[in-house]
């Protein structure tokens, strides 16, 4: 009976397999899942589909904003409270917007000229803007070769010009592109053609040096070739210089997040594309993730795009989640304070939530505002329920509410069982609740050796303390039993060969 059943089953299986092969190939093509909108990478670097983290809420173009003159090549965006400053670079103006809700942005004023000052009154190709805590506005006035500081009524205060530094080429035209301002109104700025790091100005306008140059990397074969090459050959070779930064962002703690474009080799070597600079200009970015902080792992060409992600802008939320904008493939990548990828989504295209040439990103609360310089639009992205849950879990953990955080991660897991961060999140909250054995299980599932070891160390300590009696007993047994057996044997041997007995036997 059983055998017959088995035969039937194999027969059915063979039929099913042949049927599957006979089906048209198109069915097969659709079943190989080529990505959804939102995704993530697992421990192996495999692409994992994810529940949507952000949805595009509304796309604002010139007509939605009610502008007479259409936006042209917008480059920069800055958010302060509920106010957004959009650099309409092509029209030499900055548009101040008030965010009423994610679905409603209102034009407050248009800044195209400043009052007073010795130089040009009109802005020329402003590429970035920042507002200090005191309300002063700093504008990277690219076309006028200066960074200009004005008060909130646009009265000229001071300007920051080309640094007086002997190492700079005197012919170089100063073109500040991106800037950040700290609480003391010191200015950090990136300029085209200056790769010595960020240009730092004190709050009195004096240039005080370059900070945080990217370390120079070169490979040994290039180095050896260079040693062997003649003077003329050497001049034609690429020189080993630090790469320029793409963009900077000053976070709420005063650390500067800077992004740089990676070469293909750097991306393949899994180097970070983001640096977090402290006051000394040292990189203190935590990169505990399975992969580097640098966007996509797959660098092959597809849909006309190839090479590593080019992170053109970055924004850091108050929960230390930072979002990078890739202008190569039009994607957004979120990372948490441990450098683990929280989400990745987007793409190139014309639909809402896709981009053609994204240039800047900002956040208000958890909402993201992305400027597209080709579409001339601002896309507003709001977190989905899933995204809100993840943020809730992250924030509760930071506050020290480990149980609430664990519950939120559990809810995240219910919505998306493939979300690795949730396993590690639950593990971390269990670890803080001193439930080490359960925490170990969650860490092991997602190959988090570092956290696993933390939990295991405690677990092992407790286990040893609880079983110390047994451990001592086993060790004693292991040593004493062979020892005493040997002793007994030797005593017996001595008795057997003792002289008195031998003598007695003789007698």
């Amino acid at each position: 009976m059983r055998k017959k059943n088995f035969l039937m089953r194999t027969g059915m299986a063979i039929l099913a397999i042949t049927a599957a092969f006979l089906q048209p190939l198109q069915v097969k093509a659709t079943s190989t899942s080529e990505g959804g909108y939102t995704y993530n990478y697992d421990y192996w670097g495999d692409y994992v589909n994810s529940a949507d983290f952000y949805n595009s809420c509304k796309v604002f173009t010139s007509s939605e904003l009610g502008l007479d003159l259409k936006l042209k090549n917008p480059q920069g965006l800055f958010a302060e409270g509920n106010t957004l400053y959009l650099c309409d670079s092509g029209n030499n103006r900055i548009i101040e917007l008030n965010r009423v809700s994610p679905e409603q942005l209102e034009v407050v004023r248009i800044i195209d000229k400043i009052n007073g000052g010795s130089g040009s009154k009109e802005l020329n190709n402003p590429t970035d803007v920042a507002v200090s805590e005191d309300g002063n506005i700093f504008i990277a006035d690219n076309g006028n070769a200066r960074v200009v500081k004005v008060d909130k009524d646009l009265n000229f205060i001071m300007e920051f010009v080309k640094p007086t530094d002997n190492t700079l080429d005197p012919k170089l035209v100063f073109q500040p592109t991106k800037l950040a301002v700290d609480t003391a109104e010191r200015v950090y700025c990136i300029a085209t053609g200056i790769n010595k790091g960020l240009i730092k100005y004190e709050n009195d306008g004096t240039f005080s040096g370059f900070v945080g140059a990217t370390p120079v990397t070169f490979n040994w074969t290039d180095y050896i070739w260079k040693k062997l090459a003649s003077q003329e050959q050497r001049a034609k070779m690429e020189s080993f210089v630090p790469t320029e930064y793409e963009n900077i962002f000053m976070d709420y703690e005063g650390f500067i997040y800077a992004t740089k474009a990676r070469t293909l080799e750097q991306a393949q070597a899994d180097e970070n594309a983001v640096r977090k600079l402290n006051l000394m200009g040292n990189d203190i970015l935590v990169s505990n993730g399975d992969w580097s902080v640098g966007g996509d792992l797959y660098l092959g060409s597809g849909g006309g795009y190839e090479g590593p992600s080019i992170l053109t802008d970055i924004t850091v939320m108050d929960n230390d989640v930072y979002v990078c904008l890739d202008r190569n493939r039009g994607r957004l990548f979120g990372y948490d304070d441990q450098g683990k990828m929280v989400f990745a989504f987007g793409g190139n295209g014309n639909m809402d939530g896709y981009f053609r040439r994204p240039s800047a990103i900002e956040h208000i609360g958890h909402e993201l505002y992305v400027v597209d310089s080709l579409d001339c639009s601002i896309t507003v992205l709001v977190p989905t329920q899933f995204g809100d849950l993840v943020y809730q879990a992250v924030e509760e953990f930071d506050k020290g509410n480990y149980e609430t955080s664990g519950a939120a991660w559990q809810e995240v897991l219910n919505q998306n069982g493939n979300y690795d961060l949730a396993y590690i999140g639950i593990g971390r909250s269990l670890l803080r609740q001193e439930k080490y054995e359960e925490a170990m299980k969650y860490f092991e599932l997602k190959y988090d050796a570092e956290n696993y070891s933390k939990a295991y160390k405690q677990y092992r300590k407790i286990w040893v303390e609880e079983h110390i009696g047994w451990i001592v007993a086993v060790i004693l047994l292991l040593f004493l039993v062979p020892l005493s057996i040997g002793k007994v044997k030797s005593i017996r041997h001595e008795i057997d060969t003792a002289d008195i007995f031998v003598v007695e036997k003789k007698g």
Partner: protein
Amino acid sequence: MIANTKPIDNPKDRYIDSLKYALYCITHPLDGFWDLTHEKRGTMAAANTILFLTLLIRVLKLRYTSFIFITVYWEGINIFLYLASILFPLALWVVGNWGLTTLFDGKGKLGQVYMATCYALTPYPLIQFPLMIFSNFVTVEEAEFYSVVSALSLVWAALLVIAAMGQIHEYSAGKNILFTVATLFAMLVMIFILMIFFSMISQGVAYFISLAKELMFRM
């Protein structure tokens, strides 16, 4: 232990004795490998057992070593290829070594080269098995212990293989090292020839297949 040189008649006892002899070999390589063939202390059965244990431990390690040290992408594992990663180099080594040394006064036969090489693998299962269990009781901070001991087992086995070859073939130390290097080259040459062979064969087969296809289209 070595004092016992009387021939053992019972095959089972002889097997057990020759297996135990592996422990003597790995601690006294020069003396041990000399007697392995010259005093017939080793048996093929024991050599096969050691090889089998090596393969077994290598596979068990995948599953039972802590994920701190080895993470396995199970979808990418082909168990036969994985076993071949030991068997194939071993076969190349044995054949290459025998082929070279037999031309240069080597006294070892093919079977003896195989037996001695297998005996020299003993440290691998001997160390890796306890290490595999041990790995589940350490944290990343103590990971160094694991990697050092693990490397030790490999280095030990490698040194034993070299020592064994010298004793089997009755070579001096210098000649032994020379032929170790020469054997490595021989292995490379064999791989090269095998690759040419297989690509030629596949091209040849492809030719006849395309010929047959062409015929079928025309008919």
